[in-house]
């Protein structure tokens, strides 16, 4: 199964750093454009307050106080799981097939977590207090507030992933230094501070342990833990309750994470002619993962629907009935189901595999998971246990301000990759050179 890409030379690896094309500039313009649109709207929000969104009070107000911002926050954290999936596959399980896209996935983690952070910032009414209120309160509030657990675990996740990258990048930068631009010399000097080839084995062991720590913390305790707990621990909303939320959130995270990796990897392969460096085998393998995670996603949705409609408490039953009566829910489910069917079909009949279709499916999955997450947040809020309010459920359609934030964060991810790929090799040297050579 594993395809040997060790024949690829170092020139290919640093191709993104050494080229500068019009297409790159165009991509840069698109990224800045997306960010610009969002900033335009966000400045309005800062000037006038969250009234410029379509959020409102639940209760007599008949609105939803949490909406697209929170849904997108969860979605980005979910996409961030790509990094650990691939790193774990490579470092912990020895699945070297995925080595060529491991660092791209790790970078995606950093970028996606940044976007999640951006959504926290723009979600709150007083972003100026985000640090001055949160940090002093941490020692006492982390005991209680699930939001504080969340902040803690996401910080840890970000820091561990960044440390992982910072440690592994030293090897590559040191060896590829002669092919890297001199203008960035100070950056490289900082990155490789104190580097000696003796540390390679030590660092290899250290990052194994980082991968180990993240693989337990991020999927199980972050997306299968503190994020679903943000909702399922509350006494107020029927649609949010239940232990199934942990596994369910995790399945959505993994599904969207694999989709994210497929899109990013395919983009780099396309842009830099990396057909040899990132061979079809990688994508066919990722397609199987996508199919498998989608299957679990759908299975957990089935769990929720069937327990919610058979003989559930009235409020949960109501919430579930409304959920399955919502067309957008079935669009989300349909898109994921379609991707699953395609993924499994390509394993049965390899001739059906086409990377363009796979990327299209991945985009569809990301749309579906975003829709599902926003629906989860919004519909959960519209079916409170206390259902005397005539105004509840109300209606919620994200405002342009809110939608622009999703575009803006996509822009941030694009910009991040455009910049980072000019500075460091986004594919590990290990991918093209044998480990024996590495460890020697």
């Amino acid at each position, binding site marked *: 199964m594993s395809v040997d890409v060790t024949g690829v030379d170092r020139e290919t690896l640093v191709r993104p750093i050494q080229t500068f094309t019009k297409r790159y500039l165009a991509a840069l313009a698109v990224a800045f454009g997306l960010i610009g649109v969002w900033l335009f709207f966000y400045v309005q929000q800062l000037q*006038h307050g969250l*009234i410029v*969104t379509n959020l409102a009070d639940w209760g007599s107000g008949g609105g939803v106080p949490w909406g697209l911002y929170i849904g997108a926050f969860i979605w980005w954290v979910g996409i961030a799981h790509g990094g650990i999936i691939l790193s774990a596959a490579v470092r912990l399980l020895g699945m070297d097939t995925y080595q060529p896209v491991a660092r791209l996935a790790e970078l995606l983690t950093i970028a996606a977590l940044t976007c999640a952070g951006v959504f926290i910032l723009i979600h709150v*009414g007083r*972003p100026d207090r985000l640090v001055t*209120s949160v940090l002093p309160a941490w020692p006492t509030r982390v005991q209680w507030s699930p939001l504080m657990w969340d902040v803690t675990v996401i910080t840890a996740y970000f820091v561990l992933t960044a440390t992982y990258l910072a440690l592994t990048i030293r090897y590559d930068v040191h060896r590829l230094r002669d092919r890297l631009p001199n203008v960035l010399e100070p950056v490289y000097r900082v990155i490789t501070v104190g580097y000696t080839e003796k540390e390679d084995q030590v660092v290899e062991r250290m990052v194994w342990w980082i991968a180990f720590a993240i693989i337990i913390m991020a999927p199980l305790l972050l997306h299968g833990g503190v994020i679903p707990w*943000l909702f399922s621990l509350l*006494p107020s909303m029927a649609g949010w309750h239940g232990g199934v939320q942990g596994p369910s959130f995790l399945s959505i995270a993994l599904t969207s994470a694999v989709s994210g990796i497929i899109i990013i990897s395919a983009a780099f392969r396309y842009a830099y002619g990396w057909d040899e460096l990132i061979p079809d085998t990688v994508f066919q393998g990722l397609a199987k993962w996508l199919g498998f995670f989608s299957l679990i996603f759908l299975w957990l949705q089935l769990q929720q629907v069937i327990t919610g409609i058979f003989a559930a408490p009235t409020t949960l039953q109501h919430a579930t009935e409304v959920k399955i009566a919502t067309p957008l829910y079935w669009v989300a489910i349909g898109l994921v189901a379609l991707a699953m069917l395609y993924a499994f079909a390509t394993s049965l009949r390899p001739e059906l595999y086409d990377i363009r279709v796979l990327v299209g499916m991945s985009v569809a999955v990301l749309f579906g998971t975003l829709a599902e997450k926003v629906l989860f947040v919004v519909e959960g809020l519209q079916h409170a246990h206390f259902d005397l309010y005539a*105004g509840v459920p109300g209606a919620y359609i994200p405002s342009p301000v809110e939608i622009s934030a999703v575009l803006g964060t996509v822009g941030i991810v694009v910009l991040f990759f455009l910049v980072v790929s000019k500075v460091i090799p986004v594919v590990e040297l290990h991918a093209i050179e044998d480990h024996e050579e590495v460890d020697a």
Partner: protein
Amino acid sequence: MSTDDESMYATPDEEHRRLLEETGYDADLGMEMARDAQKVSAGDLSEVEFYRRYHDRILEEFDVDDREVDLPDPDEVDSGDVNAIDRIEGAFEGIGETLRGVDGDESESRRSVMKKGAAAAALGLGGLGSAGATTGGDDGAAGAGGGDDGEGTRWGMTINLNNCDGCLACMVACDQEHNLSEGANWMYVFAFEDEGQGEQENFLPRTCQHCTDSPCTKVCPVGARHTREEDGLVLTDYDICIGCRYCEVSCPYGVNYFQWGEPDVPESEIDDDHQIDDRGRWVGSRPPEGVMGKCTFCVDRQDGQMGEEKVGTTACEEACTMDAIHFGDLNDPESPPNQHLEEYRSGQENDLEEFPNRKEHTVSTFKLMEERGTEPNVQFIGNEPSPHAEQVEGPVAYEDMGITDNRKEVLDRGADGGEEA
């Protein structure tokens, strides 16, 4: 948490022994009982066994044993074993009072009774329900009508739905007193029809429930939403709140109103007396933009900043001409909420001659969604809305009173035509 491990139960220390000895009664007995009371509290010892174990010795020491082991009236006390201790404590107090010959001096606050230390063992037991109650509230006294539990002040309400006629005067008064933005109905009156009641309208005025075990204070990441220790008020510190709205989604009652845009009434028009409480924290009146607001039980009044005569009153209570809203200290048996409930009950006695097992009155009381475990400090007299209850238009339209029901309509007008309008 239940276990047989003796070490789990704290042994009262020498300090407490000394206190017990000062009472002149059997300190050993007090110490032993305090210890076993913890077991009852933890569910490791049945009340009946607790009663049996000490009955003879109590008789010997006090000549009476009027501890009660009867299961309480479910309307009187919450289920949950914490109340076992409350009842034991009550019994101890009873012993002390019997011995002292202090007969039902009801104006005497519980704290002063305790200070007399008639049965100091009761001290040890008395606090069980309110252990470490930084909230100032006493979870043991959460049951409707519990009027003599807990220490200090615990502000709360008894709202008699049978008296409410849906005039919305309370909403208007609240709106004006706290300078609320349009649609931020800290006090909100439901008119609703319920199953099997035909066209008959019921009303339910809804404030913040100022829960003793409030989800909103638990989930707040920055401690802005907090329970004030001195009197159990659940307040928002406008200086700290980051506006994440987690309190709002965690509240089962939907009492929170975020300040989505510029408030209708600018800061310059509001006195500090309304806004800054006796601890110097900004918790009163409407919130500034970007932070959360909700009913404060008129914290400015309770702190005496509106004059001594306003302490123990709220704007909505004052505006209510139907005698529906009764605000006061739930820990004080003489307070309006407790007094009203007692009077109302005594006016609706049950036929105990024919049906001796019935409770003494026919009055139905409830707390909103008590099963959520929030321990609200607002109790209602009347019928609880069923899951099939539906909100309907009341006799008085919100618009006619110059208030807005659905805030979404206001917010949809946006920043320009919205909150200033």
